[in-house]
């Protein structure tokens, strides 16, 4: 079992109920796409899976760690097995790509290795290989503030590839990429998960990208699960119902809308969660 959410509700400090009565589970190795209108609760759901937020109601068992790990060390051990691709890559501009990728293993490295690696990167081939998989091998030693938004997003993906987590959580992983690259990147993530038997949960804005690549689709609306179906059973009417109020058109790759304000709100939520 990769995770089991049982009646999970999540209320933010300002009283907003982001999630209500979510019951969802996945076997190890499943690949799930979360879709739904913006503000539906996809990011909140991923935050609960990523242990950033503990549910206010219900239980969340992640990677056989049981509900709520007992100690800080146990939580850290669990988190080292979860890799998150963020909507806006959380990488300091002045850091070099190699360091940003190596940071993926901080949860597993002893402290001395982490600190020494700041002075001289201790696993250049590893970082290079991860960057190579997202077509950025030539940017190995480039500073992140010299990369474009799309390149930076791919560095974030390379970090998770390098981390080799058992559970990959991806929050709009390809929103900054052009359609062709987005498709290639989603396939790369799926291939990586498949090869290592890891579970992948990705929230996607583009419905076609989700249905075309993932076996299981979970529709989220207003903090609840609207449907949870194999990709083949998700029909157009269902989607229209999910996105009702978005202007009648389904969000697809070809004209991926970019919701800056939404990204900012999500950022704020993450910040509140762990700091």
């Amino acid at each position, binding site marked *: 079992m990769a995770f089991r959410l049982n009646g999970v509700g999540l209320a933010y400090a300002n009283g907003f109920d982001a999630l209500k009565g979510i019951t969802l589970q996945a076997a190890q190795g499943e690949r799930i796409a979360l879709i739904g209108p913006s503000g539906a609760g996809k990011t909140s759901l991923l935050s609960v899976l990523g242990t*950033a937020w503990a549910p206010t109601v219900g239980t969340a068992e992640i990677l056989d760690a049981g509900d709520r790990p007992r100690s800080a060390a146990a939580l850290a051990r669990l988190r080292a097995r979860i890799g*998150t691709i963020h909507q806006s890559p959380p990488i300091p501009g002045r850091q070099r790509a190699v360091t940003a990728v190596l*940071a993926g293993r901080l949860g597993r490295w002893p*402290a001395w290795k*982490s600190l020494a690696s700041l002075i001289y990167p201790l696993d250049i081939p590893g970082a290079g290989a991860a960057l190579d998989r997202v077509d950025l*091998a030539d940017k190995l030693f480039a500073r992140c503030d010299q990369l474009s938004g799309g390149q930076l997003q791919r560095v974030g993906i390379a970090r998770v590839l390098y981390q080799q987590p058992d559970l990959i959580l991806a929050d709009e992983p390809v929103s900054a990429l052009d359609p062709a690259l987005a498709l290639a990147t989603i396939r790369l993530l799926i291939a990586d998960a498949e090869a290592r038997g890891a579970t992948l949960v990705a929230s996607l804005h583009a419905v076609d990208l989700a249905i075309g690549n993932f076996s299981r689709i979970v529709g989220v609306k207003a903090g609840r699960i609207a449907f949870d179906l194999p990709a083949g059973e998700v029909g157009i009417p269902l989607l229209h119902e999910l996105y009702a109020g978005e202007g009648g058109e389904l969000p697809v790759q070809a004209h991926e809308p970019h919701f800056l304000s939404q990204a900012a709100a999500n950022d704020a939520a993450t910040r509140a*969660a762990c700091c």
Partner: protein
Amino acid sequence: MLLNPSARDPAARSRLIAALTVPVVLWPLFRAAEVEPGALFDPDNLKVIGHFLAAFLPPESGAEFLGYLARATLETLAIATAGMVLAFLLAVPLAYLATGAGREQPTLNPLTRSLLTVLRGIPELVWALLFVRVFGLGPAAGVLALGLTYGGMLAKVYAEILESVDAAPARVLRHNGAGRPLAMLYGLLPLASKELASYTVYRWECAIRASVVMGFVGAGGLGQLMDQAMKMLNGGEAATILLTFMLLVFSADGLSGWLRRSLDRPPANRPSPFGGRSAFFGLALLAGAVASFKYRDIDLASLWRLEAVNSIGTFVADFFPPDLSADWLDKVARGVWETLAISVVGTLLAAVAGMLLALPRRWMPFTVLLNTLRSVPELVWATMTVLAVGLGPFAGALALALHTAGVLGRLYAEALANAPPAAGCALRLAGAPGSPAFCYGTLPGAAPQLVAYTLYRWEMNIRMAAILGFVGAGGLGQLLYVELSLFHQARASTVIVAMLLLSIAVDQASAWLRRKMH
């Protein structure tokens, strides 16, 4: 794409060179500063400082002493306020002349700029020492000294703030035929006023600390009392004076925080911008300024009588030409090196200590510790470190480090709090333990700010290091003090020029390092 498996970090070479250069540069500086951590734990020294600290309790509370203390505190406040008024009056026209803002062609006025450099480059205590001689005894010297140095600093920062705001509104006004002053009033000031006001209030806070030490050279105020209490090793008096310092600095801190916050309040909905609060504030300011000048007769007008101008003339003439004989230059050069060493070692120690104090800042005791370190001026710390580790440059470096650690700790904590948190959070969510998550996530975001703060402090510390010798803590200060005491003006003049050049050189080096970091 194929990856070259033998790829090596291209930055490794330059990092190695840097790692080798830094100790090579720092080692002689640490030697020159006579850094001897052992001295801190020397049993004899421990006994001396222990006795001294034990004498802190109970703090002196005799009526006669408290009377002196109250008068000295008022004097300090008066010097600070009057000095700031003078500095402000000086800074406004100078900033107007120096700034490139609002000009059709961006010409920087080199004459005004260099005047500002000279005003800022000579520490206020040196100005005070000179003015005590020229203008006689009493607080006028302190007021003038503060006025000049702070006038120079305010003007420079005003000029920079005006240059940093959006130039377009002023440009448009000028194109529409407005003159430069009006274009600046309507086009630049609305954008810059908050920052200008905020910096002015911050400087007033600094002026209080600075006027505290004026007494060390005979310009009255709390410094004079502190100087004597320390010289006589009178712990009880020193404790009371220190408490007064802190009270003063904390209240100034609180007041300036309140003033800065009130700048953020939206305006009332009425045609006149001046409401009851502005009127009250204005009256209080006026009353404060007048009272400050009245207190102990800070009579600046008397400075411009013919006889006074004459005596200033002869006094200044004595300083020219500076003594450039080889053995004096040799002595001054050694003083310069020692001063540089004190400033570098002091700033580095402070950076390390400040960082350690900034990390756990959320806990109450650390805030109190930071504020305590910060509120005691370097020169006062020096009187104590001299006791703890003996006379010499190490005492100076320690004194700088103590005060600066308080300042930097606070700035670092702010910079870390303002650094984008997402990166560090993400790493912690990937299971990274605290310190690696901090080093990989938070630190790189805050680093430019941290480095900039440290370098700015170094620029201030070189000016401070130059005068720590007044209390026996090494550097150029002792040379200057002795030569001025002996009326060897030509030699003193060499020392002052050396101080000026040194501070200019450090400013340049710091600016270069900051550019390098980007």
